């Protein structure tokens, strides 16, 4: 079991079971849907901006453990961050999940997000891990209301 154990870290299992900020938001500044047509993962990400600061972020929807936990951890990591800070975190996160398996992960820079480093071994799961993030980034850039994994 060791290998999938590494994918399904305890933190991921916990966030999958008890997702944080798993709710809709009536007064959101913007919401964007993220959809993976290949596996049906479907989330809506809500963000409230206070000036340039993310004062609240939440999500709803359904998907696999990786996509759900990733969305949940994302909300906890980005609340209170500025738009630019959030974009920088996403960049680091994206770089990590798409980096070669044998590359060491910068634990200090990534903090809790490093629990997702296991997806590097499972290329099809990278889209799961980044789905909600892409939706949030689209919301921050005030882009379209639906992002799908097949156009990234």
């Amino acid at each position, binding site marked *: *079991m060791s*290998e*999938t*154990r590494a*994918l*399904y870290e305890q933190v991921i*299992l916990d966030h*999958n*079971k008890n997702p944080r900020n798993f709710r809709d938001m009536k007064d959101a500044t913007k919401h964007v849907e993220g959809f993976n047509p*290949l*596996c*049906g*993962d*479907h989330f809506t990400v809500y963000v409230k901006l206070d000036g340039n600061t993310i004062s609240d972020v939440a999500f709803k929807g*359904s*998907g*696999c*453990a*990786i996509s*759900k936990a990733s969305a949940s951890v994302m909300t906890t990591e980005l609340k209170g961050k500025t738009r630019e800070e959030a974009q920088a975190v996403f960049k680091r996160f994206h770089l990590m999940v798409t980096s070669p398996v044998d590359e060491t992960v910068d634990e200090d820079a990534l903090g809790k997000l490093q629990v997702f480093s296991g997806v590097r071994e*499972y290329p099809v*799961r990278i889209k*799961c891990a980044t789905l909600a993030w892409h939706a949030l980034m689209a919301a921050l850039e005030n882009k379209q209301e639906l992002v799908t994994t097949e156009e990234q």
Partner: protein
Amino acid sequence: MAVSPKERIAMPVAGRPPLDVERIRQDFPVLRVLQRGRPIAYLDNAATSQKPQQVIDAIYRYYSEQNANVHRGVHYLSQQATDLYEQARSKVAKFVGTTVGCEIVFTRGTTESINLVAHSYGRQHVKSGDEILISHMEHHSNIVPWQMLCEQTGAHLKVIPINDDGELLLDEFEKLLTPRTKIVSIVHVSNALGTINPVKYIVDKAHAAGAVVVVDGAQATPHLPVTVKELGCDFYALSGHKMYGPTGIGVLYGRAELLERMQPFQGGGDMILSVTFEKTTYNHHPFRFEAGTPHIEGAIGLGAAIDYLHAVGIEKIAAHEHDLLEYGTQRLLEVDGLRLIGTARVKAGVLGFTLASAHPHDVGQILDDQGVAVRAGHHCAQPVMQRFGVPATTRASFGMYNTREEIDRMVDGLHEVNRIFG
């Protein structure tokens, strides 16, 4: 005393001599591949089946001893390749139960076969206001071509509903049949639910209403005996790769009277009798529908797969898979939080399910870690997923080489999923 999986395999099914599964497994080289030191339990046969050495050898032999283009050379090799290609057509004809070779058109697969009918028959016969009838359990390849035809012609697509077990509502079907119904296109065996549909019944009703019937046989031909002349259908589509043959080759059976009057599908070489810039005369069927150099090695490989199926015996295969279905159903129901999707009374060896604890994607991943290959997703049948209110299912689908022991490995893996996610 507990019966070991090996002994269980050896138990005869209802008085029939059992399939010698261990012997059959020797013929499939992929089954010897090790994943982290263990053989792979390949339970994804509805996506594609593995290939026996006999099929691989036929393709190898073709390229090493017989290769040339067909229908055009006077030379020895071309004659030989043409003979082999046409022999394959005869094998297919016999396999699906027609004596008429020219009723067999080689295509790329079921998808192309259905598109051919929609294009060549549909555009000629379907007009604005007409109706095309499909069912709620169709694969996307038996939905989208008809939607496209409807868009082009102004016809309407109607859908036969299904019940909670995944069976067609035949009363509703009869209500939906009207004089406007021009085509009924129906799956023989559902890839997502396993349901075996009463094709003959549907054909009789549809014909009485004046409609032609197209059957999507992609999941039927590997698992049960099919005789088109008994079913009475007008068209029957199948894919080589799902019945132990190569990818890229499929078949459209069409009744000769219909094929004869149909317009070509694509234009090019082989489908013509004569070409001038002023006028082209099309070849007769089936060649009219096989433009360009065909998938020669594919047809030969499919012929070899059919020989293999005959040698093993399709009835024996059906019985063996039915045993796996019953055993698998009973074992799956032991798993906490498992919901079977597709519980028709008449079913082929397909087990689709969801687990309360985990998403199908995660289930598939954990099973893969155990060397158990299943499919997780919507199985190109999104309307089925919508009907059952699930985003996706995990699906195990059986072939002739599967064993009860492999089902046990899957069930162990599902308990592991529950331990991890519970």
